[in-house]
């Protein structure tokens, strides 16, 4: 009986040992995943293509477009508009040109801002 009890204890220990071994496998898998992530980060730092989500690419592409559009807008604001030569004539007995009635050397300028509607 003693030998049988010893054998049972031995079998029990073996079973416990095997159980511990099964639990160690997922831990090993998790370690592998961390290693893979670290490798990915290293690849990204080195400028190598990484399996990043595709949605990041359009975001990166938008930035240069904004940078391009800004310098395009600035020259438009700074553009010098060439206006056609004004025609000098007479309107209701007064010297006239585009927008202006009266003599150019008149001491007082009355500027009127208006809207036809």
């Amino acid at each position: 009986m003693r030998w049988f009890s010893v054998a049972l204890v031995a079998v029990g220990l073996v079973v416990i040992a095997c159980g511990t071994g099964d639990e160690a496998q997922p831990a090993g898998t998790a370690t592998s995943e961390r290693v893979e992530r670290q490798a990915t980060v290293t690849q990204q730092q080195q400028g190598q293509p990484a399996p990043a989500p595709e949605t990041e690419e359009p975001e990166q592409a938008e930035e240069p477009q904004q940078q391009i559009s800004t310098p395009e807008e600035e020259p438009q604001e700074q553009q010098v508009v060439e206006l056609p030569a004004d025609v000098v004539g007479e309107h209701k007995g007064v010297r006239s040109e585009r927008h202006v009635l009266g003599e150019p050397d008149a001491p007082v300028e009355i500027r009127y801002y208006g809207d036809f509607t």
Partner: protein
Amino acid sequence: MEELIHSGIARYEYRHFIIFGSASQFAAMATECAGDQGAWWEFHDAYLIDARARSFTRAGALELARDEGLDVAQFTQCIDNEEHRDRILQMQQQAIADGARGTPTFLINGRMAARSLDGIIEQVHDAAEAVENQEGG
């Protein structure tokens, strides 16, 4: 006001300040296009009193251009291409820079004028007197 201009005391300058949208914008452009052919003031007056002009339509403006003896093809091209858009925009920006917040706004020698006609006339005379004093003194 006319007397001040006729007498050589003042000159009058009209500038567009578009605050009522597309109709105002169109009228301003049509007036500028007429100005290319020496009819700026005729269109200015028409847009104040003429019913055809005050329809604020393309057809009305073209009819007016014909009546004024303008080259209608040139006028049509000008308004269709919005050739004076930038000029009007410049005036708009200048109006805001001058402190205009609505229409009508008068400035006399660069200073914001009174809202009443009597007040404006008085300010014009004061400005003319100030200029005379400067020249005399």
